[in-house]
């Protein structure tokens, strides 16, 4: 298309070397939960991203972590469809790997969950906050769009995750509830 624009902060055109993922992502229709292999990331970076997303949303009870649900592959598929987002992702992965090597003296994916959380908080604070937000947003999408997560919500929250797909009967409105209001005087101006 013939335009690129940032919505936040007024009328600005995105810089050619740093497009706004919030706008670019509209072009990437990536169904959640479909099995897919990495297309953009090599094995090492794929491992880093899988560990990253698992740290953002860890496992809890019946809910797996985001890495186990394919969030890294979802992000990879997104940047595959929107190549302009690849530099931000690759740079972020390489930077967090350097931080891990410097601080923990091992690969990010080999760090414990607590170590990874500390490293990511440092990256978020001192590294590239916008890239971090992009990975975080896409991870949340991959997680809360996944049928396994939606199916698991009912046990802990009562939310029927597939209810919005199926619907069902509800108690009809009871007009007797309006008895008091019906007795009130009109509340509108005659003109």
């Amino acid at each position, binding site marked *: 298309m013939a335009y690129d624009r940032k919505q936040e902060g007024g009328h600005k055109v995105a810089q050619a070397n740093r497009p706004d993922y919030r706008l670019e992502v509209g072009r990437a229709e990536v169904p959640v939960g479909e099995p897919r292999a990495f297309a953009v990331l090599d094995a090492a970076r794929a491992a880093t991203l899988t560990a990253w997303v698992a740290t953002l949303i860890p496992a809890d009870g019946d809910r797996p972590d985001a890495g186990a649900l394919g969030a890294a592959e979802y992000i990879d598929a997104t940047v595959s469809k929107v190549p302009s987002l690849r530099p931000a992702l690759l740079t972020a992965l390489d930077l967090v790997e350097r931080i891990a090597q410097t601080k923990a003296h091992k690969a990010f994916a080999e760090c414990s969950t607590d170590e990874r959380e500390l490293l990511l908080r440092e990256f978020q604070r001192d590294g590239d906050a916008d890239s971090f937000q992009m990975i975080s947003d896409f991870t949340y999408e991959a997680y809360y769009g996944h049928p396994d997560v939606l199916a698991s*919500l009912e046990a802990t929250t009562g939310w029927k*995750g597939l209810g919005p797909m199926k619907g069902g009967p509800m108690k009809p409105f009871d007009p007797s509830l309006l008895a008091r209001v019906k007795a009130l005087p009109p509340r509108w101006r005659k*003109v």
Partner: protein
Amino acid sequence: MSAEPRADVLVIGSGASGAAICKRLSDHGAKVVCLEQGDWIDRARLPKAHVDWEVRGRRHWAANPNVRRWPSDYPVGSEGEDPIDVYMYNAVGGSQVGFAGNYWRFAPSDFKVKTLDGVGVDWPLTYEELAPYYTINEAEIGLAGLAGDPCGPEREPLPNPPAPLGRPGELLVDAYEKLGWYWWPTEQSITTQAYRGRPACDNRGWCTFGCPQGSLSTADLTYWPGALKNGVELRTNARVREIILGSDGRAVGARYYDQDGVIREAHAAVVVVACGGLGTPRLLKMSASPAHPDGLANSSGLVGKNLMVHVQSFATGQFEQPVDGWRGTWGGTVSTRQFYETDAERDYVRGFIMSGCPGWSPLNLALQIAPWGSGHHAAFNERLNHEISMYMCGEDLPEESNRVELDWDHLDAFGMPGLITHHALHENSKRLGKDMIAHGRQVLEAAGAMSVRDFGLAPIWGWHLLGTARMGTDPKTSVTDAFNQAHDVPNLFIADSSSMPTSGGVNPSHTIQALALRCADHIWEKRRDW
């Protein structure tokens, strides 16, 4: 270039108003052609037809055209002190394809804003003049609700019963009763029972993500089937570049690009522009000519000015018990107009409505409140299905400085200009908004909320884009007359959300369509003048 045989009426835009005009005129027997720059919605691609509906709603279904970028979209920039996050769809059915279905009549006082409250302008027509068309529209779309609300004039029985309250609605009714306030089941453009071949709502909720059931009354499902049956010719993927004038100064048709980018013309005795609050001023300005150097029908200089969007916000309360928030219509099952009319005790004029909705869906909620990392699930679990939201909508006053302009630096796919919106909240709107949010919080607390958070007044949600070619009695201060007929071009009509001189404090779809039906009847009654 190929021209077509002359139709009686050419309608540009197939959304809420264009669809209603096409159906009404063709009911009367007029030969109508409609040009729509978008296409039919592929219902198999509606987000709600898929488990990952929330994600799809952020991508190809995104309401902001700068994100979605369908082939029919054009760029829209946002400028000003309070920039607008524009929500609109370019498709058969227009922006209704992504709406929630709240469907209000204006109050009689909404038509006399200047006379009663000394701000804005009066409409060139009264509630009583529009009321018969509200009634026709309610039958066409299958309005759900209940007559008898003491916050408005007497009504005929409505076609369908109100939507079920659900647990959120029940808690809010308890709150209103405790507070002693007026409340009423919200009128919604949803078929709550089988109606004219459309099925009853099955309470899947989250209506703005598309209604696979087909119970949400969007214009592609309400007016268009009948219009097509009547013989209206709907040309999709037809991007209009300009309205064509004859040597006598009358409109003779429109010049447009078809889906292959080939220039074509459509001719008619009457031309109706129904492209919405942004699309209409865009087309009128693109139709500038030596006789109309500032844009067609713009001798007043008001085309593109007085853009209004409503003062809107949400307040969300957290409850100890589950609220069954996963089901039920999303647009709010119970509403109050307690604060709709001007009250001298308050520090602003005009007013607002509040509608109670279920809380937020999983992804939306997680993005709002669930931090990443070890605390994620605890924060999420304590709020999902434990929240109720109050949607609040108040009147935004017309100001010439709030406007849209062509943006020749950012073009659509066929080289036509985008738009830039300029918007700042009026001081009255800021005071109204502050009070509106405080009352929204008050209701939730009365309903038993343990805590309440609100969304303030930023960003400005551009769900309702109004007023940019307003109607009036004086050609110096309005673009059309009371029947939507352009002051400057006798056989040109402008009938959509841009026609509204003031915004009222309610969702505008019903009023937009009632005005459109009234315009259609006027065109038909005056057909001997064509």
